[in-house]
């Protein structure tokens, strides 16, 4: 019971899950209903990672700073392996993220996407739009006055 998906798709849902709020993610996951049996390959564990960036996306890499990340890996009963990497130290989120990653590789992908990922994506987009709108309202336009020195 496997489906094909692109690396871009997976990057998309991993990204959404990585930054999702624990309470909201738990609520949506419970809303999805099913909670498949799975075997933990790597129990949820918190650790630090060094976030690196490149100036302009192409320059030399520099260390931006450390952040806390919790990760988890598990396998469903059919052998599908899911990985969860979330920011912060929520072990619950990491486990849910790993389960969602595993299920997104199976036939449950469409139902799960509608129940959890789409609402998360919409909320994230709305939060970004709100923030952008708030910032836009404070935008100041500068004009150069003609100084009349002629």
């Amino acid at each position, binding site marked *: 019971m496997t489906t094909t998906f692109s690396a871009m798709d997976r990057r998309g849902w991993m990204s959404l899950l990585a930054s999702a709020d624990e309470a909201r993610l738990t609520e949506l996951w419970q809303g999805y209903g099913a909670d498949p049996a799975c075997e933990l*390959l790597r129990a949820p564990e918190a650790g630090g990672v060094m976030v690196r960036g490149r100036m302009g996306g192409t320059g030399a890499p520099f260390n931006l700073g450390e952040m806390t990340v919790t990760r988890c890996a598990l*396998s469903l009963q059919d052998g*599908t392996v899911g990985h969860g990497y979330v920011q912060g130290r929520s072990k619950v989120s990491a486990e849910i993220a790993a389960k969602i990653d595993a299920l997104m590789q199976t036939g449950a992908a469409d139902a799960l996407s509608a129940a959890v990922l789409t609402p998360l994506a919409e909320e994230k987009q709305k939060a970004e739009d709100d923030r952008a709108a708030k910032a836009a309202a404070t935008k100041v336009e500068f004009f150069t006055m003609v100084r009349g020195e002629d």
Partner: protein
Amino acid sequence: MSLDTRNAVYAGGFSNPPVAAAHAFRAAMNAMARPGRVQDITGAAPPEGISIAAGSLLLTLCDPETGVYLAPDVDSGDLRGWLAFHTGAPVVPAEQADFALGRWDALTPLNRFLIGTPEYPDRSATLIVETPGFGAPNAVLRGPGIKNTARMQLPELTAFQNNAALYPLGVDFFFTVGSQVAALPRSTQVTAEA
């Protein structure tokens, strides 16, 4: 991307890493402290081809900062994936390895491994030798950690005598069979069984 998730790579780590790693480390430490004495070591279920003891040693001792050399007889995609997932240790050539894994024939010659420097004798390799069994002893061991003498079966004697002659430099050995481990540090003097 079609799905290719092999459980051999992801399964088989320590079920409770802090506790299992502490137990395995204690077994490894006791083995090194009492050369030639066999200790039980368990916890890992490595991919086909390497023993439980060798897998447990790798999980306990390796991390992203220790290079591991896999001899051609044990090297496989599954083992590399397993090592990367559970420890993050890079696979490196023999000349740069902190740990090396393989059967005796595949690990020799020993002179390609790091033996440390006079200032830092600890910058040397530790060899995990997969052994068919702890059979009839053919070597007598003397040195730190041994009250009078200990006896052990070794694949050959000359290589270990030469290694001991390098002291305080040299490499250290773990011998693994199934879920058992014995060790031979560089400080042990090896002579033939009378």
